[in-house]
């Protein structure tokens, strides 16, 4: 059914259609509207049987999800930013135990400086946690990916993060086609756990494992991630047959077939990038866009295929590894190893800074550029702080200094 609605409401409706039995969450912007809506659906009796547990922290939220999932319940949580980091220990635990929890990450920057706006620093920081990571480009995709996420998680006994850009998607009102309960039920069978806490058939879950088998347990987790590379395209195809629209998959190309330059990115910025590509094509530039839906597991072959014969690959990242550079770009470079393409990392849109068409046009029509650049970086502001730090030992808190400089019109 087509509806005009907020992204968070749409995701809450989609999650409810998946019939989770336990939801535990802790509020953090920009995730709040999702869990508020779900608590209403549970309290109002529209989502049942389902327990909504208000916990005292994100650590407790995911921990309760671990218990619920191990007890055989379909389990959901949502968080962002500081909350995701506060869960970290439990994130590794959920994946290590092989528990298919589904979580929405309403992507937001990580402090300090504290910042509630959108980038991908939070989920990128958990890329090695053993969770599958899917990134939504639009609210429609966020809805559809959640339905696929439960199916994928339960089939593989692996937890799945559905990442959607905070505010940009979570708080945006867009037209969304919500699936019917019948469609979702036909797509998503009831949860059949591989391991369950059942007094009739006692097992020990989470026993200590020494060097004799730890590598093998880890390797099996890796194999399940690799299996996801096979399962995700199948699921996407089955989804398209059942719901009549394409969504998900590993990586999608837009006007990439004959492109010399391809910009690869994740999330909502893809919309802007496609517009820019269309405009530049009119100016005669052979440019395409690759949208990475699945970041973990990383689809090396699919990425290599979609980037095909491009000579210039620009990876537009909403996060980066301080002291090293692009996170996604490092993966792309290994995907393209030996193919001769130049890979550039452009860090853009940190902490909610708008990624504008004008800046992207400038970037893409300019010269080859440096291997690592920061879009719209205010060099004067940076230089001012570096001067200040060089002049005096006690130069003060940098964040406050910059704000003062800005107010003073540097």
């Amino acid at each position: 059914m087509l509806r005009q609605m907020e992204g968070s409401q749409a995701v809450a409706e989609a999650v409810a259609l998946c019939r989770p039995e336990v939801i535990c969450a802790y509020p953090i912007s920009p995730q709040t509207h999702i869990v508020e809506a779900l608590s209403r659906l549970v309290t109002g009796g529209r989502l049942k049987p389902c327990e909504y547990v208000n916990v005292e922290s994100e650590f407790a939220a995911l921990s309760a999800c671990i218990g619920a999932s191990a007890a055989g319940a379909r389990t959901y949580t949502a968080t962002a930013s500081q909350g995701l980091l506060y869960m970290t220990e439990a994130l590794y635990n959920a994946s290590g135990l092989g528990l298919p929890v589904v979580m929405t990450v309403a992507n937001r920057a990580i402090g300090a400086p504290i910042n509630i706006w959108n980038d991908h620093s939070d989920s990128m920081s958990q890329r090695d946690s053993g969770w599958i990571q899917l990134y939504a480009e639009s609210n429609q995709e966020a809805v559809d990916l959640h339905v696929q996420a439960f199916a994928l998680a339960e089939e593989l006994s692996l937890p799945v993060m559905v990442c959607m850009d905070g505010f940009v998607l979570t708080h945006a009102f867009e037209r969304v086609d919500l699936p019917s309960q019948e469609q979702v039920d036909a797509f998503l069978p009831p949860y059949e756990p591989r391991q369950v806490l059942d007094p009739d058939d006692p097992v020990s879950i989470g026993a200590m494992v020494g060097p004799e088998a730890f590598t093998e347990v880890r390797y099996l987790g890796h194999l399940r991630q690799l299996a996801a590379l096979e399962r995700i395209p199948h699921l996407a195809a089955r989804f398209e047959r059942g719901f009549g629209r394409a969504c998900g998959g590993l990586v999608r190309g837009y006007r990439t077939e004959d492109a010399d330059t391809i910009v690869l990115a994740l999330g909502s910025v893809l919309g802007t990038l496609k517009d820019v590509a269309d405009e530049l094509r009119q100016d005669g530039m052979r440019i395409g866009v690759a949208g990475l839906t699945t970041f973990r597991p990383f689809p090396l072959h699919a990425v290599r295929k979609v980037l095909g014969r491009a000579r210039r690959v620009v990876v537009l990242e909403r996060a980066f590894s301080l002291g090293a550079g692009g996170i996604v770009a490092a993966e792309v470079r290994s995907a393209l190893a030996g193919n001769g393409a130049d890979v550039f990392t452009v860090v853009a849109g940190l902490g909610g800074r708008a990624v504008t068409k004008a800046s992207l046009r400038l970037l893409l029509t300019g010269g080859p550029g440096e291997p690592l650049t920061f879009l719209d970086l205010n060099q004067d502001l940076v230089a001012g702080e570096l001067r200040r730090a060089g002049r005096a030992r006690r130069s003060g808190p940098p964040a406050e200094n910059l704000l003062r400089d800005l107010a003073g019109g540097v």
Partner: protein
Amino acid sequence: MPVERTKFYQVGSFAVGNRLLPPEQRAVQASPDRGNSLTCGHRACRGCGEALGARWAVDAAISATAGRMVVVNATGCLEVFSTPYPESSWQVSWIHSLFGNAPAVATGVAAALRAKGRTEVRVVGQGGDGGTVDIGFACLSGMFERDDDVLYICYDNQAYMNTGVQRSGATPPAARTATTPLPGQAFGQGKNVPLIAMAHEIPYVATATVADLRDLEYKVRRAMEFRGARYLHVLVPCPLGWVTAACDTIRVARLATESGLFPVFEAERGEVTGVTKIRRRVPVDDYLRLQGRYAHLFGDPPKTDVIARIQAGADRNVRRFGLVD
């Protein structure tokens, strides 16, 4: 002339012999049908109070629930000595997730069972004092405050034993640990989690020790009669960390209560409903002297001022809980 009623107590232990009781009054452990939750083969130290306490407590819970239960275990000695294959020794549905999240995992298990309409299956969480009063404290308080249907058992050996005897929020004054070198743990620190649990006004809070295992069994059984959050704090001496003889575990635990240092009581919805009276009060010296972690108090000359401060703490417990008639 006062008449002394005949008591069938073993010498010194105050524990009544099973053979003298009618079968229905005998200990769960005396029954050939006991749960045997924690079987032999685990790798706890000789004389480990925690292994003893956990077996009695979980078996009592199995008996109270007819085996319809799930155990959630925090990281710590109990988890480490009981799970590495082939020493895995749990005969119940059992999960270990992390050090600091056992109460929250238990909450999740209980929520799942509720959603599935299987509330006849009960949930028991358990961990050491570190996992309970320190790193897991927020999760514990949250579980209490929401009144989740979980019995949480803390096996208190008064330090982080699994990592080599470091101080915890339950380490008592003057005790030496690897991170409270002499003169030992400071006075005026630490927290009393049974009282904090009572402040949450949860249905049931109790303390127990491995010196009175029938009382421990009773308290587990009693706890299982309630729905909602329940807390049981069990003193479990640790020969390694307390530097006591393995054969003295029960004796040390008994002296902890008989000196007044560890009050044994139960409370419902924040009010004390029962106190185990001290039968034969002993000075704290008797308790401290047996333990190497207090050896520095008994040098030449002994630290009488420190011992007096510890005694004052015991006296306060006696007054506060009415431990002596």
